[in-house]
C-alpha cells in the first residue's frame, strides 16, 4: 500500500479570519507585546504555592529527576475528624481530573479511608489509564485541605493508587504505575477542564473495561458502571467558592534552565477574587466532548491541542526537527528554534502561541541540576492524522512566564462557560 492521502478540510471562514500561522490572509496587525506578568501571592483564600524541584525522594533514590513538574502538598484526612496526613510532591495536572495519592508515598500513606461504595454495597476501585500505563487502586472518601490557601472539601472521592492488599484486574491495560518511581510523583491533583475523570462514558451499560470496578473482595474486582457522583471528581469544582477553574502561574525561566524556581502558584477560581481576574487573557473555548482547542502549525490546521501542565515538554510534530540521538522522545535542533502556532477556540477566537524548541541534550549537559527547563520539546508520535488524540500538546514550558487559565466544564466565569483555556 502506498501512502494514503490525508484530506484535511480547511474551514474557509476560519482561514479568512486568521492572521497568524494558519496560513490565511495577513491583514490582522501583529498583537501587542504581552503585559508584564503578575504572579499572585500564596495564601488564603485561594492561592497555593507550586514547588518545581527534582520530585519525591523516591525518584532521587532511583536516580531519576523530575523536570518541569509542578507540585503541591495536600492534607488528607479520614472524614468526620479522623486522622490526617499531609502528602507532598503531588503533581498539578491541568490535563486530568481528580486527586490521587500513591499508597507508597515518601511518607507512606497509611490512612484507612472509607471506601466509596456502589449502590449494591460493594467497594469501588478505579484503573486510571495513561498513555504509558495505568494506575489502579480503590476509590475512597476523604476530607482534604490545600494547606496554604486553606481550601477544604469534606467527603470527596479520591483514588488511593497501589493500596496494599489490592490486586490489579487483568483488564486494567498497560504497565502498572502503582509506585512513586513508576508514577513519577506521590500523587496527582487533576485540575483539568472536566468535572470528573471519566464522565458520561463510565455511566453507560455495559461498563467499559479498564475504568471503574466494583470489588466483592480486593482481589476480585469486576468492571462496573458508576454514576458521575461515584467517580473521582475535579476537586476544584466542589469548592464552596473559587470553583470555576484554576490559574497556573509560573515565573519566566531563564534560558539554560533553573533549579527549584520559586514564586510559582496555583490559583483557584477565575474572576472570583481580586487576584484571579482574566485581565487581557484571550479565552479559547474548548470542545465540550474532548476538551481540545485547535492549533495550526507550519501549514497544518485543525490539530487537537491543549495547555497541559501535566506534560513536561511541548509535544508536536515537525519532521524537520531532529530528535535526540540518545532519547528520541525529545527534539535536538542544531540551534534553539523560535516557533509559532495559532490556537483557535470553538467560537473561532484565535491566539498566537509563541514557543521555543531547545536542544534537549545540550541544555541538560550544560545544566544537569535544572528542574525547570524552557523550550523542552519532543515529537508527539503515534497516529498521523488521527482526529481523536491530542496533536499539539503545549506542556509546562509554555506555562513559564504566563498565567494559564483552565476553566471547568459547565462552570460560569466572567470569560464565559467552561471548558476553556486562556492566557
Amino acid at each position: 500500500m502506498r501512502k494514503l492521502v490525508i484530506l484535511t478540510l480547511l474551514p474557509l471562514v476560519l482561514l479568512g479570519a486568521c492572521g497568524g500561522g494558519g496560513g490565511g490572509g495577513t491583514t490582522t496587525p501583529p498583537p501587542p507585546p504581552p503585559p508584564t506578568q503578575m504572579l499572585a501571592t500564596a495564601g488564603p483564600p485561594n492561592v497555593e504555592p507550586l514547588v518545581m524541584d527534582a520530585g519525591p525522594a523516591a525518584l532521587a533514590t532511583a536516580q531519576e529527576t523530575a523536570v518541569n513538574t509542578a507540585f503541591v502538598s495536600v492534607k488528607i484526612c479520614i472524614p468526620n475528624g479522623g486522622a490526617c496526613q499531609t502528602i507532598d510532591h503531588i503533581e498539578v495536572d491541568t490535563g486530568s481530573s481528580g486527586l490521587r495519592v500513591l499508597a507508597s508515598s515518601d511518607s507512606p500513606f497509611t490512612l484507612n479511608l472509607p471506601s466509596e461504595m456502589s449502590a449494591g454495597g460493594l467497594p469501588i476501585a478505579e484503573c486510571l489509564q495513561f498513555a504509558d500505563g495505568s494506575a489502579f487502586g480503590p476509590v475512597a472518601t476523604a476530607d482534604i485541605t490545600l494547606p496554604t490557601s486553606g481550601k477544604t472539601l469534606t467527603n470527596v472521592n479520591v483514588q488511593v493508587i497501589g493500596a496494599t492488599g489490592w490486586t490489579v484486574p487483568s483488564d486494567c491495560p498497560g504497565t502498572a504505575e502503582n509506585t512513586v518511581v513508576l508514577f513519577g510523583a506521590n500523587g496527582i491533583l487533576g485540575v483539568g477542564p472536566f468535572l470528573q475523570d471519566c464522565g458520561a462514558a463510565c455511566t453507560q451499560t455495559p461498563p467499559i473495561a479498564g475504568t471503574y470496578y466494583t470489588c466483592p473482595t480486593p482481589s476480585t474486582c469486576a468492571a462496573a458502571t458508576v454514576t458521575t457522583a461515584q467517580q473521582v471528581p475535579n476537586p476544584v469544582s466542589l469548592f464552596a467558592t473559587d470553583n470555576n477553574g484554576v490559574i497556573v502561574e509560573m515565573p519566566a525561566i531563564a534560558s539554560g534552565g533553573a533549579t527549584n524556581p520559586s514564586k510559582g502558584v496555583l490559583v483557584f477560581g477565575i474572576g472570583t477574587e481580586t487576584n484571579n481576574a482574566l485581565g487581557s487573557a484571550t479565552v479559547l473555548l474548548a470542545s465540550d466532548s474532548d476538551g481540545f482547542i485547535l492549533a495550526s502549525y507550519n501549514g497544518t490546521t485543525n490539530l487537537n491541542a491543549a495547555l497541559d501542565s501535566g506534560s513536561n515538554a511541548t509535544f508536536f510534530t515537525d519532521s524537520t526537527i531532529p530528535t535526540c540521538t540518545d532519547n528520541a522522545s525529545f527534539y535536538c535542533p542544531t540551534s534553539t528554534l523560535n516557533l509559532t502556532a495559532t490556537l483557535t477556540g470553538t467560537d473561532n477566537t484565535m491566539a498566537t502561541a509563541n514557543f521555543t524548541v531547545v536542544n534537549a541534550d545540550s541544555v541538560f549537559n550544560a545544566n544537569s541540576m535544572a528542574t525547570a527547563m524552557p523550550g523542552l520539546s519532543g515529537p508527539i508520535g503515534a497516529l498521523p492524522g488521527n482526529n481523536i488524540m491530542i496533536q499539539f500538546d503545549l506542556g509546562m514550558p509554555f506555562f513559564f512566564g504566563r498565567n494559564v487559565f483552565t476553566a471547568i466544564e459547565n462552570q460560569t466565569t466572567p470569560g464565559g462557560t467552561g471548558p476553556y483555556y486562556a492566557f
Partner: protein
Amino acid sequence: MKLTRIVLFPALLAALAAAPAFAALGGDVSSVQADLAHMKGALRVTTNAAVTVHEISTTYGTSVREFTGADGKVFAVSWSGPVNPDLRQVLGSYYPQFAQAASTTHGSHRRLNIEQPGLVVQNVGRLRAFAGRAWVPSMLPVNFSIDDIK
C-alpha cells in the same frame, strides 16, 4: 486506490467469535476474530492487493485496527478512542517484550514511545482520548509506509 469494504453481519460475527484465541500482533488472521470476540465489537474489513485492515469498533468508542499482509499475519495494530484497548490481547505474544520495555521507560503520562529492533509501540493521550499503534518492523510488507498505520 480503490478500497473495498466488507461489512460482516451479526450471524457471521457470531460464527467468527468461536475462533480460537490466538494472539494479535504477529499472529495470523484468526487472531482478529479472537480480538473481535474479546472486545465484543463490530468488524469492518478494508483491503487492497497487499494489505488488509480489520477494524474492530467497540460499543464504548474505542476502535482497533489490525493490519495483515499477504501472508495473513498481523504486522501492525493501531487503536483510538476514550480508553486504551486491552494491550495483552492486542499485542499478543509481543506483550511481554512491551511490558519489559515499558517498565523501564519512565516518561510522560501523556505519551509512550518504545522503539526496539523487533517492536515499536507508540501511544498518546489521556483518559477520554487515546490513540496508539504498534508494529513489528521485520514484518512490514515491501513498500509499506508506517505512515499508513493509523
